């Protein structure tokens, strides 16, 4: 089993994911907790953008990627129309 990320990594990871649009910004009044499933999905989407295996956990490769040089703009835009190209499966 992949080693559990440290609390610091989780905190840094959630900040990073929030900054780049993978998680909604925290709302003090609602204090909504991020369900583990939501966090896992957010990590998977980030791993897809980064070309990493989509494990859904903050593994060392994912944490290292969060330190790579990049564009400041968010990866997931709220109103963006994410275009998923449907791959026609050949039988």
């Amino acid at each position, binding site marked *: 089993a992949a080693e559990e990320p440290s609390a610091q990594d989780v905190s840094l990871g959630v900040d990073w994911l929030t900054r*780049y649009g993978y998680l909604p910004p925290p709302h003090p009044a609602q204090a909504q907790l991020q369900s583990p499933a939501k966090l896992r999905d957010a990590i998977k989407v980030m791993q*897809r*953008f*980064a*070309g990493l295996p989509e494990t859904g956990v903050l593994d060392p490769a994912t944490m290292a*990627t969060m*330190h*790579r*040089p*990049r*564009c*400041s*703009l*968010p*990866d*997931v*835009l709220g*109103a*963006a*129309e*994410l*275009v998923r190209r449907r791959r026609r499966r050949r039988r």
Partner: protein
Amino acid sequence: YALSGSVWKKRTLTWRVHSFPKSSALSQEMVRTLMHHALTTWGVESGLKFQEVGSQSPAEPDIIIDFARAYHQDSYPFDGQGGTLAHAFFPGEHSISGDTHFDDEEVWTYGSKDGEGTDLFAVAVHEFGHALGLGHSSAPDSIMRPFYQGPVGDPHKYRLSQDDREGLQQLYGKVPQTPYDKPTRKPLAPPPPPPALPPDSPSLPTPDRCEGNFDAIANIRGETFFFKGPWFWRVQPSGQLVSPRPARLHRFWEGLPARVRVVQAAYARPSDGCILLFSGPQFWVFRDRQLEGAPRPLTELGLPAGEEVDAVFSWPQNGKTYLIRGRRYWRYDDAARRPDPGYPRDLSLWEGAPPAPDDVTVGNTGDTYFFKGAHYWRFLKGSVKAESDSPQPMGHKWLDCPAPSAGPHAPRPPKAT
């Protein structure tokens, strides 16, 4: 790909580099050239046109480019070297829409072989994707991936991936496919091969490029063109001569009338990238290789009726165009599109320059070169005083000619002012 949801309504966008990297090895001329190529990368796939405007331009450009550090009055402060590299604002009516910021604390490079630093062209192409309305993409070969992927190679050869082209065409439609309005962005493409001459026709004698005495010389998108009679040679930014055999003037510059036997001066206009060829009291404007409109009189640029030019160049230090005839020169404000008052002035203000130069051009490093006969005079970037070791023989440095043999028979340079 992802669309930001905003798009420019117009199809011609203006841009200007408002501030340059403070510590980069890249000259301002090189930064502007890289920005031009990065924008043109999107233009060739969409029909969008990009016009660089000078600082005097009354209207604010659509895309203002800045090199800034740390907090710079927007909601994306930079974080020093590494980490965040740059960002751009999506299209819109807000004054910041389209603006593009690069972190001035990065080591911006171009064409670095050892992977050192951050390739400015690659990041600029990415950021201008945002400035046109694209979000980040997860497609493996997309330039819009959020993480820096390293240099993308030669700006003249780079082409967007299919994913990026599809996203762009969602926003701006497909590029016109007819051959005439398909914009070119690479250095001006080589002309079609000349038709095989009938076996009995004498092949035209071509001049010897190492003799110098060119009619006109111009830096066109980083390549240096040397014109002589109905011929010209091209030298790539790397200094590589495209071919020792000259190309045919009228085959390449489509629409140049056959009656134009000699191009007396030439230069690329920074404001729109058009190329102007001068002959007699007129000049012709080319967009890429195609003639645009009828010939214009030199009086439009402030010269007296009937006057001709020896040399024309645009000086990046002030964005002005200099027109030289004999020992005098006029100055034209490209951005304001009007001649500057108080001219002509004496050429001796360019200390050490030769009278009636064959032509003058600004190299990719930002230095200014006066050419005459088989020699050139070099003025360092921003200087109006010739280098003390000027003039120098031009053939060996510029045209891959044998090094001049020193001694009593070496060609003597013409007298300078």
